[in-house]
């Protein structure tokens, strides 16, 4: 039996996967579209549809995020507007590259390899953060020093910020930045977004902060502002060629919107540090999953596909389930503690 062109198990998979991605998004504050596109690729969707649907999902989650933070706070609108233009140019170039690669028959391979590198990189960063947190816990005296070093701009960021090639624009938060730096940073992020179908918030926000020099609080708001419009543009670009599967995007959004509410509520109950190591491992497993899928295609055998879906979807289910389990456990212990206190009071 099929509903909206999808079998019931696939329909349930998309809603529940959206829910789990939403929990992760709400908890860790990441868009999660970087899990959607590779999953669709593994499920044999064409690269352009997987990327277009991933971007459309990102646009939907951005709308919800902006509604939630409609008072975005510190937003540099001038910088946001320039970023939107250059991001859009980057996305357009990225999407043209995808269609060109598709014509050559290597789009899935290139996108797959890009995801293997991207997810393994993010996973390694999170595992490093988890390791540093453990280190900080073991040596409390060094904790403040470690925090300070996290806020320091890396040498390459300082070097890029030091280029004063005209035209320069004044930033709302103070300071000036070269339009060339903004164009390079925004265009690069846009190209990656258009090429592999990710919202790019996890690279856009650091780029605005470290390369352009916007303070962290303003960088978050400006990233969200520019991301919403670039997400709409990316969806429009792929929508022009009919490469957005609305059934898949709608099902994912239904699950994700609910999951994000639960995930963000969980941040007040569960310590991020307790589960960050699992998030890092999830990214590494997802990367291995895509590598196995590519290997499976190369060998012409379908047996590894099951393992790759299990690694990619299963690992995100596991981490989201860990968060939910901790929420239930903490809520239960809080309630029993409150009950004991009340009894004691009597």
């Amino acid at each position, binding site marked *: 039996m099929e509903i909206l062109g999808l079998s019931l198990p696939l329909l349930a998979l998309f809603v529940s996967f959206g829910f789990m991605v939403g929990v992760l998004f709400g908890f860790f504050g990441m868009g999660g579209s970087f899990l959607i596109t590779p999953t669709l690729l593994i499920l044999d969707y064409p690269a352009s549809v997987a990327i277009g649907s991933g971007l459309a999902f990102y646009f*939907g989650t951005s709308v919800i995020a902006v509604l939630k933070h409609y008072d975005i706070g510190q937003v540099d609108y001038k910088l946001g507007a320039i970023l939107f233009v250059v991001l859009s140019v980057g996305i357009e170039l990225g999407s043209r590259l995808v269609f060109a690669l598709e014509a050559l028959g290597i789009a899935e391979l290139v996108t797959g390899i890009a995801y293997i590198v991207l997810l393994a990189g993010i996973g390694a960063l999170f595992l490093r953060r988890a390791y540093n947190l453990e280190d900080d816990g073991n040596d409390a005296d060094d904790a403040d020093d470690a925090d300070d070093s996290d806020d320091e701009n890396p040498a390459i960021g300082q070097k890029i910020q030091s280029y004063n090639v005209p035209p320069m624009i004044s930033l709302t938060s103070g300071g000036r930045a070269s339009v060339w730096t903004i164009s390079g940073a925004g265009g690069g992020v846009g190209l990656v977004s258009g090429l592999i179908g990710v919202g790019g918030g996890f690279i856009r926000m650091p780029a605005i902060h470290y390369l352009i020099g916007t303070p962290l609080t303003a960088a978050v708001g400006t990233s969200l502002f520019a991301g919403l419009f670039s997400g*709409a543009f990316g969806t429009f670009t792929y929508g022009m060629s009919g490469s*957005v599967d*609305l*059934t898949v995007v709608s099902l994912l959004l239904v699950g994700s919107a609910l999951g994000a509410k639960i995930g963000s509520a969980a941040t007040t109950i569960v310590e991020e540090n307790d589960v960050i190591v699992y998030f890092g491992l999830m990214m590494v497993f997802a990367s291995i999953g895509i590598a196995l899928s590519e290997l499976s295609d190369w060998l012409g055998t379908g047996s590894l596909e099951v393992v790759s879906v299990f690694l990619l979807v299963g690992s995100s289910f596991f981490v989201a389930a860990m968060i939910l389990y901790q929420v239930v456990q903490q809520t239960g212990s809080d309630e029993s503690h409150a009950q004991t206190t009340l009894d004691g009071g009597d």
Partner: protein
Amino acid sequence: MIGIEGGVTGAFAVVGFILVQAIALYVAYGWLESIVETIRSDKVN
């Protein structure tokens, strides 16, 4: 695949559809949350 055929009109339709769906979901889950909160506070009282 169920999608909207391409072209400028189709692309606007896709963006509009997702925009409306996201707003509807935000409102619907907001209501759901407030209902759950009301039930919870009634239970506590």
